[in-house]
């Protein structure tokens, strides 16, 4: 059974455009970062021969051709296989960079990574409906990925190559999985969709189960990941806070990934509001979700690239600007500025959340926890120095509190998304019948 084009393009004004532009762009971004990482991994760790260029280019293209041809492949498998093969090939290459096995293994890994480079077009074309738009958005993501790859190397060094495919793969997976579910459901109900297209067809794929799975997964990860870091520190016979200390470590990447996920969910809330609007239920404040999405993307960038630290160390502190605020470390006024903007946005968001009670409660808890963490972060070190286990507060407590605060925001937004999708389903069904 073939997916009906009409079911996607005519009847899904919100999902067909909005929800495929982002996955297309992020697919391009992920593919660029994966290829970039492979290239520099081989260049820096194995050696530069003309073989490097040929292997990367030809294996990638072979993978793309296979991805275009393989009918039973699904995008989630392609993303996971690509990321796993990167780490598998990377481990094999790093273990014996001079071995004769290096190039065949690298070629196989790159080829598997390239599967998505072909398959993503096959997967997204029905939803995007026009190949020029699909190529345009995917290629924009690719260009962005090259810039992001280089910026990442410039800011974080070689360790960037270690983390980025996992990080971008996770974000992409979170976006592609609901779309894939929608496509599966649309395929299952293709005949009915053609006979009587409902506006909520793709939304059903995003709804209920996938949101619940995502929420449970997020809760589990937010508990298990810090525990794993603590266990790792113990195994290395180091103090517990060493894994949480400083910037650019594993918890930073986790946090940035989670912030991007929140941004994606906020964006999807706007998409759901657009659909409800189309169904006759006015959503006058839906713009706030776009603001929230942009805000969380900025916070992810701040987390990764230490923007507020740079403002503090390079601009405010050397010039002594805003240094006289009681209890606040010199230069850390930026955090208060962030908090102020967040509070202003929250005023508008409350109007959106109050119709979904658990969402508002979760949001308030998130704000309370984040305020608490920000206060500890901005407190003068002399004050924290008087507390018991001062390093615990400025590392483990601060970092874990931060990601749990993010988790509460995520859950709050997911509740809204779930409710809106249910509402859209009801309105769509009523309209269809």
């Amino acid at each position, binding site marked *: 059974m073939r997916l009906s084009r009409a079911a996607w393009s005519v009847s899904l004004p919100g999902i067909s455009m909005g929800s495929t532009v982002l996955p297309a762009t992020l697919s391009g971004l992920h593919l660029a970062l994966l290829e970039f990482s492979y290239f520099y991994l081989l260049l*820096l760790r194995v*050696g530069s021969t003309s073989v490097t260029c040929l292997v990367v280019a030809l294996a990638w293209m072979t993978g793309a051709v296979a991805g275009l*041809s393989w009918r039973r492949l699904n995008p989630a498998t392609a993303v996971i296989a690509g990321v796993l093969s990167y780490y598998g090939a990377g481990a094999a290459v790093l273990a014996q960079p001079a071995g004769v096995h290096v190039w065949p293994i690298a070629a196989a890994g790159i080829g598997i990574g390239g599967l998505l480079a072909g398959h993503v077009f096959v997967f997204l074309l029905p939803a995007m409906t026009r190949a020029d738009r699909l190529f345009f958005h995917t290629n924009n993501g690719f260009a962005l990925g090259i810039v992001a790859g280089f910026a990442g190397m410039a800011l974080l060094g070689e360790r960037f190559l270690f983390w980025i495919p996992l990080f971008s793969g996770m974000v992409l997976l979170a976006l592609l999985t609901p779309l894939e579910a929608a496509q599966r459901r649309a395929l299952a109900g293709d005949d009915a969709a053609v006979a009587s297209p409902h506006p909520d067809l793709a939304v059903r794929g995003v709804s209920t189960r996938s949101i619940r799975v995502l929420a449970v997964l997020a809760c589990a990860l937010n508990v298990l990941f810090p525990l794993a870091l603590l266990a790792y520190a113990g195994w290395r016979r180091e103090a517990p806070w060493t894994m949480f200390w400083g910037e650019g470590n594993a918890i930073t990447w986790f946090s940035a990934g989670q912030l991007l996920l929140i941004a994606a969910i906020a964006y999807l809330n706007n998409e759901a509001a657009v659909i409800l609007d189309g169904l006759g239920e006015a959503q006058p404040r839906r713009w706030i979700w776009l603001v929230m999405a942009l805000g969380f993307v900025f916070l992810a960038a701040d987390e990764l690239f230490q923007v507020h630290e740079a403002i503090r160390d390079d601009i405010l502190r050397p010039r002594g600007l805003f240094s006289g605020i009681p209890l606040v470390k010199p230069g850390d006024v930026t955090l208060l500025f962030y908090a102020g903007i967040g509070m202003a946005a929250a005023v508008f968001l409350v109007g959106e959340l109050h119709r979904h009670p658990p969402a508002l409660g979760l949001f308030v808890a998130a704000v309370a926890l984040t305020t608490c963490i920000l206060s500890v972060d901005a407190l003068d070190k002399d004050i924290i120095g008087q507390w018991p286990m001062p390093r615990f507060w400025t590392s483990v407590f601060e970092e874990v509190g931060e990601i749990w605060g993010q988790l509460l925001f995520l859950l709050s937004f997911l509740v809204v998304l779930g409710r809106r999708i249910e509402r859209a389903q009801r309105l769509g069904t009523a309209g269809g019948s």
Partner: protein
Amino acid sequence: MGVPKAVIRCAGAPRPETLPCLTLFLVGAALVITQFAMLRDFVAILSGEEAVAILVTVAFAVGLSVGYALAGALSERAFRRLFAASAGVHLTFPFSLRYIAAWIGAWELGEVWSVGLLVAYALLSNAALAAFVPRAIDRHEDGGGEVARLRLYYRVQIAGSMVGVVLVALSWNRPAAVLLVPYWVVIGSILFLTVQRRGWTLAYAAAALTAVLFMGELERHSNALLYARKHAIGSAAVLYSVNTAYQKVEVVEDGEGTRHLYLDGRQARRSTDLEVLDYFAAELPAALLRPRRVLLIGAGTLSCVPKVHPYAGQLTVLEPNDAVVEASRRFFTARERLRGLERWDLRVDDGRRFLRRTTDLYDLVVVDVPAPRTMWEATFHSVEFFRLVLSRLSPRGVVAVPLGERLRRSEGSAADIVAALAAVFEQVLVVNSVRADRGFAYASLHLRFGEAEIRREALEHDSHLEVISPPRLGTGVARAAPRPASVIDATVSRGVERFVAGYLDG
């Protein structure tokens, strides 16, 4: 006008997809060749930085995006005209961009104009090519689903790209014509299949034939003008110019007969400097050590060989780029100077790969690689690389590393390299030569020579030497963090700073 008869005859009874498939196959090949040609020429014009290579790649991708954005908006007629214009631009490539870059240099317009030139070329050359595949998928009227057409057409284009990669690989280390001629034939074929006007195709063919006839002269003149105007080399004559897998290799002779080796538009060696550089990098430590086995990594000019040979039992030269060896043999180290020297051999291989595989131990290893400006060059100055060198050094062996600049402060690439050496070796000694205008580091677990020996041996080569021995060195490099791969990280950061200062700050 319908499908060209030639195509119908060749294909017998062609399926409806035959013509678009053939076109897309050629488009795939053309895109890869364009990308390679743009990368090599623009990186050379914008001076061989890592950031420049990224910028060129991004500009290429932006050109593709513009093509995708236009694909659905253009009528068939407008698209044919756009492609015909684009084919004309392809035909002037890469000579026209060199001339324009030379004028930008001559008129001192600022490097930001060179970046503008790059973007303009990316748009003019790629946009039309990029539009083919989405147009074929979206506009094809022969039935079948768009997903089926996507599978077919995109696969064919990628297959063409793979052939393009092979063509590019076959052109490495060969004159420009080896790639340009098939490239123009491919573009001409696409023009014939797309525009389907014999007059236009004949005009293109005539122009291409003229360009091929004058290609040698165009190549020499455009390159020479670029070096004269942009690099301010008076009466520049380009003696050698080839693209390789690694970089663009060029030998330029100025009006006074001095020869310059340029790698990706960056000066790597000057014939008048070789004497003093070779002396401090290789001859001085060889004279002091009298080593049994010597390894020269990256000494592709071969000029070190006759100088080190008298002191060494066996000498091995490693150079990954055989075009550098070829250029050196022809223009820097005449065969006569190497004649009669028997205890040496040349291997075209990557230094790291060789060190990992060899079982030999060396008494002296000279790392004569350009100062790190790209990540690849930086890997030869990293802690990890020096650990690898240490594993192939005899117990009292020494590694000698030219620093690219004098060690003057705790920042900069020289300090980074010395810090990386200090992280691996017990003893590091740096010589700052006024005459060579750079520093040279010697490192070992047990250095067999010190300041006095160096001053005595090198007196006649440079009487104003500054020798920085370990105690002073410690204070000099203390702030350069000797962590693994720090040289690579610092090289990228510095490259970005240089790029922004050079190209974007007006």
